[in-house]
């Protein structure tokens, strides 16, 4: 049971309301209910006296409810008076008396229209991100041409720093993951090929799959998640703190200072990682063939020599720098698209990883068609 905070006694056309207890935020809900009960009282009223003499405490919540009560009766044309209010609370009441309650504009709730608008916005956003990616590719091309003519303006320190982050520090995790992938492919191959007595073809499968497709794909997906996201977050927080604007005003081109070394580091780093990753995967595949499939390392190697050629290896390696470029461009575009809020940084980082993995796979498909048509 809640305590009585407001009590009313009606005498003809006059209503006496007596407040009591603590009119504070904790009691606001029950106080509001009691006020509502009072104001629901019908009948002609001319005068309302609100006696606040027994109210022990009053905060802005209580004061606002009192102000609301006064406004309700005043709008009904009653002569409303607040009496017995402690002097300490006078200033607060005066302050709230001036509050003009312009309601915040109500949200229009047309879900159909919202859904259609959402589709439109998304399509527009896709178009926008495609155009900004093309913009970025163009900016990188122009900047690299300029840097080629003035090699001194290239930031080698930054490139080395990025290479350290993107390539060197990524080696252990890339080796581990590609090694495991190689093991798994070989194990699955052995398990199913054994039924047909075709154990030894597992070597062909591992060799071709790893060198042509999986090595580069796994590495690119890892790099997109590991370094692409880092690029977006770095550039995004620099954008948020106006560091990029500062660069511009000092006459530096952010593409030259920030984007080019990062993209260059990826273009150098990803092929190296792809090579290392492919080797680790082949090693893993060989190890499983030996321990699980009983194919001796000598047989594995000679079989591998027969099944793959330098071309197989080239097909995988040619793709690596293009994919690196895509990851770098997407990461930088998304990073520079960050706006003021922390939420936007998170959104752009997610978008960067998702888009770059998607585009890497699309590009891989395009390369597959291309290589097939030229007979590689």
């Amino acid at each position, binding site marked *: 049971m809640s305590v009585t905070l407001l009590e009313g006694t009606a005498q003809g056309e006059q209503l006496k309301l007596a407040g009591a207890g603590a009119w504070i935020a904790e009691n606001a809900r029950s106080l509001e209910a009691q006020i509502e009960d009072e104001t629901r009282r019908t009948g002609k009223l001319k005068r309302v006296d609100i006696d606040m003499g027994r109210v022990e405490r009053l*905060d*802005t*919540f209580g004061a606002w409810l009192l102000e609301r009560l006064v406004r309700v009766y005043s709008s009904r044309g009653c002569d409303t008076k607040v009496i017995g209010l402690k002097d300490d609370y006078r200033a607060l009441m005066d*302050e*709230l008396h001036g*509050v003009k309650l312009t309601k915040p504009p109500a949200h229009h709730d047309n879900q159909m229209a919202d859904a259609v608008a959402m589709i439109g916005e998304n399509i527009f956003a896709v178009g926008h991100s495609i155009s900004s990616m093309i913009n970025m590719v163009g900016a990188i091309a122009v900047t690299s041409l300029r840097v080629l003519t003035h090699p001194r303006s290239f930031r080698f320190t930054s490139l080395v720093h990025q290479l350290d982050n993107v390539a060197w520090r990524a080696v252990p995790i890339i080796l581990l993951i590609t090694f495991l992938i190689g093991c798994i492919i070989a194990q699955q191959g052995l398990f199913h090929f054994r039924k047909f007595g075709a154990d030894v073809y597992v070597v062909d499968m591992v060799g071709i799959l790893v060198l042509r497709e999986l090595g580069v794909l796994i590495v690119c997906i890892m790099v997109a998640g590991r370094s692409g996201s880092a690029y977006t977050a770095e550039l995004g927080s620099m954008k948020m703190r106006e560091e990029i604007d500062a660069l511009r005003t000092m006459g530096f081109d952010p593409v030259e200072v920030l984007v080019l070394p990062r993209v260059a580091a990826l273009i150098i780093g990803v092929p190296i990682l792809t090579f290392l990753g492919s080797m680790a995967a082949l090693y893993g595949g060989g190890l499983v063939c030996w321990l699980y499939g009983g194919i001796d390392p000598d047989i594995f190697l000679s079989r591998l020599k027969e099944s793959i050629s330098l071309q197989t290896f080239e097909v995988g390696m040619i793709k690596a720098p293009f994919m690196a470029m895509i990851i770098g461009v997407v990461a930088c575009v998304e990073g520079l698209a960050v*706006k*003021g*809020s922390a939420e936007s940084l998170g959104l752009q980082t997610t978008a960067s990883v998702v888009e770059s993995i998607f585009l890497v796979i699309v590009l891989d498909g395009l390369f597959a068609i291309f290589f097939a048509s030229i007979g590689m």
Partner: protein
Amino acid sequence: MAQEPAKANGRRSKEVVIEVRGVVAGFGEHVVLDRVDLDVYRGEILGFVGGSGAGKSVLMRTIIGLLCKRAGSIKVFGTDMEAASDLERQAIERRWGILFQQGALFSSLTVLENLQFPVREYLDLPQDLLDEMAVAKLEMVGLDASVCDKFPAELSGGMTKRVALARALALDPEIVFLDEPTSGLDPIGAGEFDTLIATLQRTLGLTVFMVTHDLDSLHTVCDRIAVLADGKIIAAGTMDTMLASTHPWLRAYFHGKRSREGSQYDKTARV
């Protein structure tokens, strides 16, 4: 006139709401606060000054529990914050509001949601009352309902400070901590903000702990000033005490070029 009730009140009771005793705090080898003692009385506006890097913010953050102290005790409303249980601590946290230097508004929420966030967490109130209270608080800090649906990134510096102050006041706190409330505001905006703080202090009976460098704020709104230097409180008292002090740092701070007399000397010199 503005400060009379607070001063009268202070003289009558002198109730200590924050009691800092022998607090030591620092980072690694570096000791920032070395046995600091400080009292904050109910209903006063305490200006807290000190050189950049002297540890003003460290002390404020230690009092509100964002930093750990190495020694000493901090009592808020007579409760030792270290010995307090989680529930007691939460009850005290509900009774203070903090205005961070950059506002610290939640960037993914609108202004209205920012103001309602603490209220919604602590109190069970109907939505229409929440909305009305948020608008009322906005009007108390000199804004209006038109900013309700804006996101913090869309606000100007002065508006951000005002919204952050409104959020600090959302739960009707008894103490508000203000970390450099007027920094980054133009002199007119800073002056208005000072008046606003004084008005709110009077109407809501707040105790204000204000870290500031603004000499005008110290002159116009602060009842008492505490000075931190070399890890200790070197002086605490009214503006007159500060001006009368012979301590070299205090002389440099309050009688320097940028102080009121300093700039007056400049004017007379020019004439």
